[in-house]
């Protein structure tokens, strides 16, 4: 339930597909988080690199944690360029009860930001500039220094 797309996400379609996939699973709460490219610092858009093998194992570990709490997670992310006001990221939690879903979406999105092997670049003046200042070193970084 991890979906990677080239370019911007079709948000209404993905939110609809996921809702319909779980329509008969008896979950009481569905909380998607949608991340959209904001206009700031004169960027034209963002671009993303993804390292899939580690993203997959990171996601599977979260799916297991979700399952232990009776929940399920879905996630979609863009590869390559995503322009202003387009969306690059959707994460969603389904769970029987609202508290689990509200807590899980927060924990998941924060760990995603800190750990998922995805690199962000600003698109500016036709160049692709690594967004180092907004990036987070993965826990345990620096062991080779």
């Amino acid at each position: 339930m991890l979906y990677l797309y080239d370019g911007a996400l079709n948000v209404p379609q993905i939110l609809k597909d996921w809702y319909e996939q779980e329509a008969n699973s008896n979950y009481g709460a569905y909380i998607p988080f949608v991340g959209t490219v904001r206009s700031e610092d004169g960027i034209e858009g963002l671009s993303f690199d993804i390292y899939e093998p580690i993203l997959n194992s990171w996601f599977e570990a979260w799916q297991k944690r979700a399952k232990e709490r009776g929940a399920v997670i879905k996630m979609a992310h863009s590869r390559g360029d995503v322009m202003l006001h387009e969306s690059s990221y959707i994460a969603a939690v389904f769970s029987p009860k609202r508290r689990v879903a509200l807590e899980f979406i927060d924990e998941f999105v924060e760990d995603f930001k800190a750990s998922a092997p995805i690199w962000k670049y600003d698109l500016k003046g036709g160049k692709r500039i690594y967004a180092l200042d907004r990036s987070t070193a993965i826990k345990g970084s620096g062991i080779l220094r």
Partner: protein
Amino acid sequence: MVTVEFLGPIQKESLKLEIANLSELAKILQNDEEMQPWLENSAVAVNDMLVSSRDIELKDGDRVALLPPVCGG
């Protein structure tokens, strides 16, 4: 032979090295001036598992990856 890959924004071709552990890799990369900042802030994966210590033995065919700071979303 161990393959070393540099992910995301690190502009460096992958290497094939005869090394037995991550400490040997560290010594080699520390001699590459352009790699200095990346060694500070990159995480390391062996065969796609993140590791938290240099005390990892490497064997023929292992794959090492350096992961610089991330920002998905």
